């Protein structure tokens, strides 16, 4: 049996050698840059000097779960964990549907030229650097000549310090993420929509379905598997609230709603070159992400949806 399997494998390898060769660079990339560096995770359990090099990974003292304890025992642990999950959940709730709606809307646009213009305009913010985006947000929201506060003044209202207000700060973050990522995120859905059989639309049209009904009863169900897949991946990233935009926009008045795991690790770990501590927190996030991914995949399969695995 084993001999037959081995022959089968090698036979397949020879028969489909072109495909395997095509996949080889990607596999090598994964192996070298994703799997091999996993050995470095051991520094999460050691007290590493940043300049001891590779040798230091082997020779530096083993400290067990000290860095995890430091993280869990931090006075602000629950605050930063809550902020991280809160911001991410807010994004999933409000930001996840936006690329889908954008893709559905773009699919209904008849004019090819107009569609391309809208697509291009919606993609552009994705390529702006976080520093530029943060600068734009500060300029728009400042009380001194900012667009939003000028409108409020015209309406007879008092200006609001949005970036200093815990009430508004998370919403500003989520809106910024949506503005930056919606266009780019719609690409996957648009690609999935182009794979839908046009005959389905024709049949529905013959049955008297309007454009909205076609979108709801044909387009959405046909791309449901992609939606579920991406939702599972987003749930897996529940502890990734983003770093750059938060770091560039937050300040003391909003720490209690905006200080997340990554900004905490930056201050406590990276600035002081405590790479072991930063690695321990990263490992914690990865383990939680893996558990959430498995749970989300299990749930999706129970609901008769295709999962990730």
């Amino acid at each position, binding site marked *: 049996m084993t001999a037959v399997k081995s022959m089968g494998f090698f036979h397949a390898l020879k028969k489909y050698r072109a495909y395997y060769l095509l996949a080889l660079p990607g596999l090598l990339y994964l192996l070298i840059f994703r799997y091999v560096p996993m050995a470095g995770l051991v520094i999460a359990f050691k*007290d590493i*000097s*940043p*300049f*001891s*090099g590779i040798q230091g990974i082997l020779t530096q003292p083993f400290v067990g779960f000290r860095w995890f304890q*430091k993280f869990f*025992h*931090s*006075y*602000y642990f629950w605050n930063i964990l809550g902020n991280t999950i809160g911001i991410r959940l807010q994004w999933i709730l409000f930001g996840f549907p936006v690329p889908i709606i954008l893709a559905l809307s773009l699919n209904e646009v008849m004019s090819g030229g107009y569609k391309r213009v809208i697509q291009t305009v919606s993609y552009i913010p994705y390529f702006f650097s976080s520093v530029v985006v*943060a600068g734009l947000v*500060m300029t728009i929201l*400042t*009380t*001194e000549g900012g667009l939003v506060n000028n409108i409020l003044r015209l309406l007879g209202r008092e200006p609001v*310090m949005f*970036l*200093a207000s815990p009430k508004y700060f998370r919403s500003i973050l989520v809106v910024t993420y949506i503005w930056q990522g919606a266009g780019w995120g719609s690409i996957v859905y648009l690609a999935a929509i182009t794979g839908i059989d046009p005959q389905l639309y024709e049949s529905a049209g013959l049955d008297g379905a309007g454009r909205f009904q076609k979108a709801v009863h044909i387009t959405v169900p046909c791309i449901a598997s992609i939606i579920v897949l991406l939702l599972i991946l987003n749930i897996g990233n529940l502890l990734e609230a983003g770093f750059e935009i938060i770091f*560039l*926009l*937050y*300040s*003391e*008045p*909003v*720490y*209690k709603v905006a*200080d997340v795991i990554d900004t*905490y690790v930056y*201050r*406590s770990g*990276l600035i*002081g*070159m*405590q790479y072991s501590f930063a690695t321990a927190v990263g490992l914690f996030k990865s383990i939680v992400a893996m558990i959430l991914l498995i749970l989300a995949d299990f749930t999706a399969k129970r609901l008769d949806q295709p999962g990730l695995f």
Partner: protein
Amino acid sequence: MTNRRVLAILIALGLVFTATASWAKGSTETAVKTVPEVYIWPQVGTVTAQGTPKAKLEAIQKHLIEKTGIKPIGMPTDYYSTENQTKLNLILASRQQRIDVFSGNWPEYVDVALPLNDLLTKYGPNILKAFSKEAMLACTDKDGKIIGIPRLGVMGHTQFTWFQEDLLKKAGIAIPTTWAEIEPALLAMRKVNPNAMILTSSTNDFMRCWLGAFTKTGFANWLDANGKVQLFVTADGFKTFVATMADWYRKGYFFKETFIKHDDTEVLKSGNVGIFAGWYSRITILYSRLLAAGGVTAKYVMPDRILGPNGPIATDNVSNTNAIMISKNCPDPAAAVKFLNWQYDTDHPENVVTANYGVEGTDWAWVNPKEKYLFNQLTKDYQGEFMASAGLATDVLLAPNTPELLSHYTTIRKYALNLSNGILPFDATVAYDGKELKNRAPAVDDINRMVSEQVVQFIMGARPMGDWDAFLGELKKAGYDSVVEENTRQYNLLKKK
């Protein structure tokens, strides 16, 4: 056959030619290699990833070889990039690229920095002469090893209170020199310009400017009756300071967004900043550029010192662990020290100007060759890659004669080493080990966040002053005592030297 022979001869000739060329190149390289080399990580803010144009850089390098007998090699990278320090650390850790001279917070680099005691004695007399005993002590570890050359040390010039001169003149008042005069000065300015306000560059900066008006020890640690090193937040008078600032904020004296992310330059451009209490280069460099470009007309002036009930209200800035270091992997540390020593020669300030600005007579020239202080920059394409001695000791030797930078350098020269204009922290010469502090008192980061966050909350009115005792209780709960214990331990250990 004939063709094959011709081909064989041509190949053979080609090989011989190539070998000869390589040998000749090798010989030339051998000759060049006898000049010691020093690789310098950028020390000045003018260096960018593009670097100086190659021809210019080589010309200045050649000039420096003639002057010092040492070949400096610059490593272009964006000095002000947030990734600069990370990149440096990665290169030092990986050892894939040679770096001989670099700078940073020396306790973090003890594993890679070479002790300099013998080298300084042998090759660095100018360096030793340029610094006080206290400044060198601050760069010495507990075993007496000098790990770095002080870059900043204790500074008396970094935080000042600046007043808009035009508003003062129109209001008919003199520049305030006491704390009690500051609020009336602002109110007088507001009669001229109702939008006149106070701006600060950061919470820490403005506490360094003004906290001395309320506490005896200013923005620094203080020693309690039991010999414990306490943080400024628990000093007598700090609560009154916060309450006063909260009252000023409520009255609208401050720029509303002064405690959140904002662009100081844009706010200064508005012309409404009557008082600026913060980092000096916002005025001496950033605002000077605006003035030079003609974008603004208002000027800012400052008194030498402002006195409060306890003496100066500013606190001297202790950045004593910031140092220039030589890597343990440097193959010729003697050459590195000699190159640095040449730049620190106070009898020949043209040395450091050459390293920073280029060749005398071609790239720069003294305004008054007898005085040797102000100089005119004749070219601007050299970025300063070979400037290894950046810091206070050399900044006081020179001043570029440009509208943008003259104010900056003359401020440094006048005030940097005049520590009597501010409160000198009692532990100014103690180089606390930040890494050891984080290891033994992990709560230190939580305490730092709590203090900065809650001070701003109180000032902006998000938290009432009635909660002050509750805040002190939160500090204790977060581990304040462990931070005090570790600071005290280090102070007692390090102050003995």
